[in-house]
């Protein structure tokens, strides 16, 4: 996915000299190709993120098309006020790329992990939030972001997972991408790294319909309303806090349109406790396949119509 990002950026910068990349001294090796292909469009703003975002706003006001690269723990979190006041308020076409979202930097600790970035930005007017699941979605998201007329946050999580799609899907503002159709009682809506997990876990409930949400804001409320109408429960999955992210957004729509059971799978209200590999930390947060399956089963067991969600014994056997 990082390669897809880099290639899309290099192609855009070659096509349009107004495209400039700002980085807060991050992106070692990632930008080698960009620096070689478009050295004049590369700006290392130093270890100074607040100024970097303000400068990006000024560049956009001056007619350029800046892309601000940072770790998602810093862009947007450290510079939230600059994004609000300098970028969003004026609806400037600034792309903010938050790399390593979620717990990707598992062994570096809390400073480098971000499970609150989507929640922080969702409350800011005008900024769109994209969260691709694989390289194909990344290319589509980059094309959307670079053609946008206002601010966009592009959340790049774990980048070396297997592809979800065989070819670039049709990604557009607000739109969900169906990755498995089905007419069973459960619908699954996942974003980023959790799409793959959703596909795997959903096999245990036959007939599950699974969607990827490469765009978290805006969301197609009518489409989600329809999903609520045609399924008995919706499972939302993200490598992000259960507060304020995709799950919250889905639950808000469900509550307003057609009260539906919404199970939010994500990081509970806690920081990572231990050091370890990415897989270890996903497990610590209950976001690995087995833990997610258990949480979903427990959620469904509490519902009045629990019997209609009987998982497939065969699928369970397969998974075991």
């Amino acid at each position: 996915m990082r390669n897809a990002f880099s290639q899309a950026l290099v192609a855009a910068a070659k096509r349009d000299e107004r495209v400039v990349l700002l980085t807060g001294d991050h992106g070692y090796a990632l930008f080698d190709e960009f620096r070689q292909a478009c050295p004049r469009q590369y700006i290392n703003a130093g270890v100074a993120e607040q100024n970097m975002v303000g400068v990006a706003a000024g560049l956009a006001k001056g007619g350029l098309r800046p892309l601000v690269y940072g770790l998602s723990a810093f862009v947007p979190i450290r510079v939230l006020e600059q994004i609000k006041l300098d970028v969003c308020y004026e609806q400037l076409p600034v792309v903010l790329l938050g790399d390593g979202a979620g717990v990707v930097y598992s062994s570096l600790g809390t400073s480098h992990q971000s499970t609150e970035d989507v929640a922080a930005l969702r409350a800011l007017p005008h900024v769109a939030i994209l969260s691709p699941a694989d390289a194909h979605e990344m290319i589509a998201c980059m094309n959307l972001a670079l053609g946008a007329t206002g601010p966009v946050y592009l959340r790049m999580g774990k980048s070396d997972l297997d592809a979800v799609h065989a070819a670039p899907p049709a990604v557009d503002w607000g739109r969900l991408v169906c990755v498995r159709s089905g007419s069973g009682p459960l619908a699954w809506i996942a974003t980023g790294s959790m799409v793959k997990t959703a596909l795997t876990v959903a096999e245990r409930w036959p007939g599950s319909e699974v969607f990827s949400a490469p765009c978290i804001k805006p969301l197609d409320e009518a489409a989600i309303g329809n999903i609520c109408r045609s399924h008995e429960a919706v499972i939302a999955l993200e490598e992000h806090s259960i507060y304020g992210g995709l799950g919250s957004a889905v639950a808000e729509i469900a509550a307003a349109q057609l009260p539906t059971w919404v199970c939010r799978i994500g990081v509970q209200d806690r920081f990572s406790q231990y050091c370890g590999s990415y897989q270890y930390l996903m497990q610590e947060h209950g976001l690995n396949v087995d833990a997610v399956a258990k949480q979903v089963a427990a959620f469904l067991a509490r519902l009045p119509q629990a019997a209609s969600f009987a998982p497939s014994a065969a699928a369970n056997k397969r998974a075991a």
Partner: protein
Amino acid sequence: MPHFDPRELRKTVLRMAYAGSTVHIACAFSLIEIMAVLYRSQLRLGDGPRAVDRDYLVLSKGHGVMAQYACLRELGCLTDDELARYFGDGTRLKGLSDAHVPGLEVSSGSLGHGLSVGVGLALAARRKGTDQRVFAIVGDGEINEGSIWEALLFAVHFELSNLVLIVDENGFQAMGSTEEVMNLGDVAAKLVAFGLETRRVDGHDEAALDRTISALVRHPCRRPRAVVARTVKGKGVSFMEADNRWHYTRLTAETYAAAMAELEPPAAKEAA
């Protein structure tokens, strides 16, 4: 032809502040001559406040915005009627700089933002190959913000010689003198140390300001430029000068009348 007469500008500020019962009068008064000189003889605004090739006046110190409103009135961008309804329900002029108002380049009030945006504007002009300049006004309280110093590092590193930083050094911030709140010592020396081509000037001496800025923008070097303008907070009305209560005090009928009377030209005062 607008004159940007400091007395008239201060009277406009007082009318607004009285009409809206607003604070920050003293913050605007220290800026008046700086604004007057910039609008009268430094800024090239072309077709107006949204002209694409204009010079930019970035008021990073958004608390002084009434001084800029007063100048925009002289330019014909704001009407007396609009100023008289300052702070009224449903009006567009806010108590702090807001970029949605043509003529105001940045939204400020949260401090330490505008200079970075100005640096970005200067960099954009450089990349587009235009000769646009950016004049960015910061307060000496505002420069407590770390982002100001980030912006200066960046401007010097990228040799943004089309940036002119103006420090309104009035010696006060919200809760007291800069010396007692957060003593920055010799501000000009710090700017020199950061690599800016720096001058000190009396911020209420229009001729000196004009001369200094004119020479500075022509100075043959690749450094960004800085003017440390020594000013008096509340300048122009005797009972407001260097009395920091006027950061937050609102006008009464009595103080409004007394302040307006002080701003009459000497001849008018004698005749009265």
